Each structure stands twice: as C-alpha cells, then as structure tokens.
C-alpha cells in the first residue's frame, strides 16, 4: 500500500538522521537544538490575546502592563528554554552488554559549561513520552542520568537514538534534541528459563580426556529429576518431601563439582530450533560459570576451548550473541 504521508515522514526521518553524525559525545548548539511552542504555549498565547482585547476594550492601562509583562516573560522563557539545552555536552558512558528481554542501562553524563540547568528529561527516542528520566545539571558541573530500554534481539546493535528535552521554565515551549550515539551494544541471547540442567560429561561425544564417566560418584547435591536418571540416583527421601510439597522427583547431582570440565555443545541441545539452542547454551554458560566449572563451547562453526573466568564467560556469550 502506498501511503504518501508515511513515505514522506520516513524520507524526512532518513534525512534528519543522515544530518546527525553518530557520536558518543554530543555538544548541543544552535544547530542541533530544536524548539516549538507546546499546547500550553498556544493556550498562553490565546490568554495573552484575550487579555489584550480586554485591556483595549476597557481601556485599562494596567491591563496593558499585565498583558505585555506576560508576553515579555513568554518571549524570555523561550530563550531560557532554548538556553537550557544549548551548550550542554552529552556523553554516553560505555554500555554494558545485556541479555535479550533484560533492561539495557545507558549512562548519560551531562556537562554544563556555565549556568545550572533544570528539568531536563532524557529518554530513548522511540519510548513513550511519559518515560522521561529527569535531571538537573549544576553550574559548571556534571550530572548523570540513567536510561533503560529492553533489548529485543541478540547481536551487536547500535544504541538507539536518544532524545533530550526540556520545558523549563514556564512550559510554554518545548526544546529538544535528537542524539544518535556511536556506541555499539552487545545483546546476548535470552537464557533459557527454567534452565535445563547442565549436560553430563557423558553426553559429550568424543569428550575431553579430563571428563570422567561417573554415574555413581560422590553425592554432591541434588537437582531436578531428568528423564533417564537411573532409580538409584534419585534421592528418595528428599523426593518424597518435595512431592509432598507439590514438587517433582529429585535426583542426586553428581556432575557439577566432580566434572570440572564440561562441554556445552550445540549438538547436545536435542532438536530445538537454533535460537532456542542459543538460549539454552547461554543458560548453560551462566550456570557453568556460576558453578566455577571449566567449560568449553561448541557451535557449528566455532569452538571455544575449555576455560573459566569472567573473560571466558564474556567470550562465550559474545560468540552466542554474534552467531550467524
């Protein structure tokens, strides 16, 4: 369907975006701060006109004084509103990666080169108008605001366009700016929930040498029953209690501590769809990291060797986020 108005708007948006280079530090100047009267501003204009008409008709010189005082204040408020944004420097701190479905936190630092600035609202441009996070910037100082939005797809994304606006002091004008940060944002796949239990080393085809097959090793803990658990692995006493409470069977968990090394394998996810596999692998990565295990990640076209630690976790999640 051809919708000329929509096409025009899209064209305009493309043009406006191309005007704005992506940058992590944006200096607000005359060129990128926009201003228009608000609905209240129009109402104010109507009020001033009515006051003027009344002053003329009743020949009230004090009425003229009031009318012109309000008109003058309105004009001055326009300049103050514009000057509230103009001159500010917006800076986006490095953005931490997030999981799909989680809130991404954006830390924006505003620096004022001169006077104090009041009532500046920041938001992700596409968010609803009511979600502004408000901030004051002290004179010759800095203030930081946190914005958040929900990540919807894994991968490396550009930080969405941000908007800053203010109506200070009288609300008759709204001045705003559009900011396209250059920073990139890494979004990991959404971890599966409830998480499937970590694969047993047994499941690892052609597993590493360290992996020991041990079904009856030392009992380290319990975990949810999994199909295929032999009856002797079930912790019957605990299971009875758990079932009394409406739970499920409980098996002895012998894997985590015993099997220090562990392969998280694409192939080990059964017959799930690719994205679900990534979710499961992400959940496993988190679980393996939590358990302090040494683990490796095996994707169809990539393999990360056995390792542990924060950096390894990050590499694994990154690999999952960026897979194909």
């Amino acid at each position, binding site marked *: 369907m051809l919708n000329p108005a929509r096409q025009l708007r899209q064209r305009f948006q493309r043009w406006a975006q191309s005007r704005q280079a992506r940058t992590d530090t944006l200096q607000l100047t005359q060129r990128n701060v926009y201003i228009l009267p608000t609905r209240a501003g129009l109402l104010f204009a109507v009020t001033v006109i009515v006051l003027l008409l009344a002053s*003329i*008709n009743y020949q*009230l010189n004090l009425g003229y*004084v009031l009318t012109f005082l309000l008109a003058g204040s309105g004009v001055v408020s326009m300049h103050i509103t514009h000057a509230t944004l103009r001159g500010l420097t917006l800076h986006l701190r490095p953005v931490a990666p997030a999981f799909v479905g989680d809130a991404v936190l954006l830390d924006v630092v505003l620096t004022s080169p001169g006077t104090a600035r009041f009532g500046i609202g920041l938001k992700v441009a596409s968010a609803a108008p009511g979600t502004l996070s*408000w*901030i004051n910037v002290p004179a*010759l100082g800095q203030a930081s605001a946190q914005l958040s939005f929900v990540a919807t797809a894994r991968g490396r994304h550009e930080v969405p366009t941000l908007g800053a606006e203010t109506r200070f002091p*009288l*609300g008759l004008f709204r001045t705003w700016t559009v900011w396209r940060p250059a920073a990139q944002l890494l979004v990991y796949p959404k971890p599966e929930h409830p998480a499937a239990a970590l694969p047993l080393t047994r499941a690892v085809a052609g597993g590493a040498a360290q992996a020991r097959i041990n079904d009856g090793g030392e009992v380290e803990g319990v975990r949810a029953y999994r199909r295929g658990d032999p009856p002797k692995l079930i912790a019957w006493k605990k299971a009875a209690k758990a079932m009394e409470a409406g739970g499920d069977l409980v098996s002895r968990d012998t894997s985590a501590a015993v099997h220090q090394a562990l392969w998280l394998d694409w192939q080990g996810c059964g017959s799930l769809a690719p994205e679900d596999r990534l979710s499961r692998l992400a959940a496993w990565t988190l679980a393996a990291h939590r358990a302090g295990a040494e683990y490796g990640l095996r994707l169809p076209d990539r393999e990360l060797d056995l390792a542990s630690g924060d950096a390894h976790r990050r590499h694994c999640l990154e690999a999952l986020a960026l897979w194909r």
Partner: protein
Amino acid sequence: MPAALKARASAWLGWQRLPRDARDTLFMLFVIGWTVLPHVGHLAAWCSLLTLAVLLWRARLALDNAALPSRWVLVAVLLFAAGLTLWSHQTLLGKEPGVTMVVVLMALKTLELRARRDAFVVFFLGFFIVLTHFLYSQSLLVAVAMLVSVWGLLTALVLVHMPVGQPSLRQAGALAARTALWGAPIMALMFVLFPRIGPLWGVPSDGQVKTGLSNTMRMGSVAELALDDSIALRVRFDGPPPAPGAMYFRGPVLTRFDGHEWRVANFDSFATLRAPSNLQVRGDPVRYEMTLEPLRITSLPLLEATGIAPAIEGYRTLALPDLQWLTDRPVIERLRFKAEAWPQFTHGPRTSTPALREALELPAGYNPRTLAWAAELRRQPAYANAPPRVLAAALMTHIRTQRYTYTVAPGEYGANAVDEFWLDRREGFCEHFASAFVVIMRALNVPARIVTGFQGTDAAPIDGYYAVRQSSAHAWAEYWEPGTGWVRADPTAAVAPDRIDRGSRLAPPPGLMAGALGNVSPELLARLRGGWEAINNRWNQWVLNYSRGQQIDVLKSLGVDSPSWEDLALLLIVSLSSLALGGAAWAWWDRHRIDPWVRQMERLRAALRRLGLDSAAHDAPRALAARVRAQYGAQGEALAALLDALERQRYSRTTLARPDAALTRAFVSHARGLRPAR
C-alpha cells in the same frame, strides 16, 4: 474545626518538611487565595465563602495526601454556584457575574489538578482574575498586590517544570523573577509604543464605576459624592491660582425639572448652532493644565469660563450655548490638556429669547407651599417689581438668617422635597439649596437653572497640582438678568461660606486608623497623605494617564514630524524585530561559549605547544607538570608549580568556582621566557 486548624498549623511549621507535591499545592492555593482576596469586597458573600471553603478543602486533601473528589461532585458544586450566581445577579453575563464565575471556576479547578494541563488552566484563569481587578481599581496598591500575584503564579509555573528533587520556593521564585525582569524591557517597549485605540466594541460601561457628574441630579446624589475622596481632576496654574471662591469647574447645566430629577436641556444641533453662548470676557486669562480622571461622561468640567476649545488628542470638543464643554465620546481614559479661563465674564442672551422659557418651567403639583411662599414674597412691596438680582439677594439673606444647616447627611426627602427642605427641615447639602433657589426664582418668574460641577480644590498643591476630589462636586444656580445674561448665584455660599471661599468641605467621619492618627498628629497625617498622593499622582501621570496623546509626544520627542498611528505601529514592529534579532544573535554568540576551565586548559596547552610540549585534551595538569619537569628541570619549576596549583584549584578539597585568570597570565608569561625544547 480545631483539627483542621491544627493540621494547618503543623503544616505551616513543617513547611520545609512537607512532601514536594503537598508543598507545591499549598503554595499554589496560597497564591490563588492572594489573587482572589482583593475581590472579596466586590463578590457576593457566598462566593467568597465558597472559594475559601474549596481552597481549605483542597489544602486539607493535599496535607492528608487524600484522593481528589470525583468529577460529579465538582459538576454539582459548579451547578450550585451557577445557580447562586443567577440568584444574586439575575444573569450569568456581565462583569459581576463573570468575575464570580471565574473565581468559582478557578477554585474548583484546584480540585481537579490531575494532569499538567489542569495546572495550566489554573494559571491562565489566575492571570485573567488579575486583570479583572483592574476593572475595579488601577491604584498603585492594587498594582503592587497584583504584581505579587503574577510573581506567585509564575513561580508556581516554574515549580511545575522543575521535576527533580525538592527545589526551594526561593529558588523557583528567583527564577520566575528573573524571567519576568528580563521580560520587563519588552513590556516597557510595548507599553510605550503599542498604539492605543478606542474600544473595539461597545462602550465599557462595566469599567471602573465613577459616580462623577452626570446629566441628571436628584436630591442626595451630590451628597453621595461627598463621601468619595478620590480625585476627579488635577489642575496646575501657570501663574498664581485664582481665589478658591472663584474656582468653579462647570459641568452639566440642568434646566428641566420634573419634580424629582433635574435634567439637561434638550439641545438639537440646530438650536445649538442658533443660540450662541455670547461669552464676553474681561481681564487677564488664567492659563492652566488639567489632568482629568476618566469620569465616563462626555462633559468636560473646565474652569469657568473657558472660551477656547482645548486641544485634546483623540477627542473633538464642542461648546454648548450654556457654556458647558463636551467631548464627542465619553472620556474613558485620563486626559491631560491645557486651557485658558477668564474669571471675569458674562454670558447668555442679553434680551429675552424663547429659549429662556424652558428655564421658567415648573412641574405642576409639586412643592405647592414653596410656590405659595414665593408668591407671598412677590406680594411684598419691596419685591413686587424688583429685578432678579434683588430677589436673589433676598433669598440669600433668607438662607443666611433663617438658620439653615449645611450637612452631608440631611436624610431622605419625600415627593415635595423643596417644600420639606425650604420650610420644614432646613437641612441640606448644596443640591438642596440650589434646587430650592432655582424653584423659587422660577416661581418668581425669573429664569433660573442648576449648574453642576466641582467647586474648590485641595488647599495645598502637590507637585504643583491642585487636586479636585469627587467630594468637591457641587451644584449651584444661575439666574437670568435682563441686559446682563446668566448670573451665578451660589446659595451654599450663603449658608456655608467656608465651603466656597476656602474650599473646606464637609468631611465624612474618618476611618478608625486615620481618625486615631489624626487625633495624635494632624500634621503627620496630612504629610503622609500628601506624600502618598504625590506618589499616586506620578503613578497616574506616567502609567495610568499614558494614552495616545502621550504616545504622540514620545514620537515627537524622538524627532518624528506629525506622528501618526502608523508611525507608532512601525516603530513598535522595528523595535521588536531588532530585539528578536538581538536575542538570536545572543544565542548565536552563546554557541561559542565553552567551559571556562576547558578554555583555560586550552590556553595553557597552546603555550606548552609553542615550547614543543604536545599534550592531549584529557591530560591532567599534574601530567603536564611532570612533562615540564622532565623537559626543563629546575628551569621549568615555575611553570610546573603553576600547573600543580591549577591541579589543586580544580581537584583539591577547596576548589575554585571559576578559573584563576591571574594564573593563566602568569603561566603564559613564564612560558614565553623559556626557550622551546629541541
């Protein structure tokens, strides 16, 4: 309600500790209350009470953080208020009911402050209410009170737009004041240059109600004015002022009498042309400048006898044959003009004309005893064929000798008021004396009429201006003498010579405060009053009196020949455009403004760059100092020390608010003294 009082008191004491919302709401309610307060005198009692109740209710809700009432409650209260308005004013249109409804709406809207839009409605209604005060009074006091109101409203508006934390009222107030102060030049410019035009529709009869002179007079209508101490006009004389007894300001001349009410004669334009006023003057004229308050009548109360039309910007003036001056439309603004008057003059026809017949008519059936009294006078031999001036003198003597009393409060008179006054009660104000005089003269077959206007001024001038108050309103008489014309006869002078010769008026009992002060120190009271009126006079001259005439004067003083309406508009547009350009230029210049610390660092780095020391923007002064020390050793110690000092100024516990310019200068000069490395 002691509980509510207690809550309010504790709220007041804990003003700082209130939650933000409650504090802002209370502040706004206070501002609204202040804005409405001066209306209490004009509003019906129920409206004031309802407003007070609603505001208190809202304050209570704010303190308790309770839910606002449902919309149905508001609608019900609004309908109730509309019903009461109809009941007390019989209409919903017009000034009084309009003000009543706006005040009620404003109060009720505070109960509906849900969205920001609602807040705006309250503010804009507030500005409107401020304007309605000026319909009643434009005095300096009202202006100051309303300035506070506007400031409060703007402060509340600023508070709404400071959503972070708990900004103090003082801070928001300062921001609002700053906005208004920066707007003041625009206000002054527009006030001076905005072309003053007449009312766009209708004549504002609803404006300030001035019970000045009018084209009718009833017994008691002038006495009402005796209580009104406001100023009707001011005169400044170029030379010495005429004697107080000669200061008659002539207003409407009332010839027709229906028994109750005196009215002006019928003038059609033809008769106006045909009957000249026949004014003949002797001696030297008195030149004077008059500032006339908007009396909302067409009559110009000029000093007797002003022969030449005064030039008044925006009005045409016209002299009636009875020597009254008229404007072509009611005067609804303060006028200032110059004129000349001759204290010695004669006017009116020398010989009997048909037009005089109207000045002989008496309504049938009224005041029979007075007519009988007059007939009896006529029968006395001395007066049987006496000329009018002898009869007038006889009446004056009668008034002087028969114990008549001059009083502000003569009480009510019935249908035959002249009978009652002249023969029974003998107590009256100027209009009683003048009416009786004219009725008796007519009964004696002498044409006579009543002249209304002002007589006398304040004893001492203020700023060179003699004030004539509404309480100086006066009614006197004129009778026609063959061969001479109309002759002034003021029967009040016979009963109360002080009133005429020294301008001392009958004063109504003073108010409590003024009374107490007057007893302790009459001079202080007089001086206070004089000072206050001097300020008030300036206020009137410069603000309220500012009209088209003064605008034209401003243009003339700017060197415009024969300025016009269009010139004003053009000048206004040009000035506003240049102001707007100035604002844009400021914003453009402001673009280049950067953090003064950054600017200082740039200068220091530039100085170092000349020495061959490159640095990055993020290098701290400390890092630069290390580099200078590495490069120059002891030679560069002075520079390095300055950099360390800068580091302390910026980052130590006691930082400077602004960069130290002396440091920058010292650094640059030291750097010049060094030779570039390599």
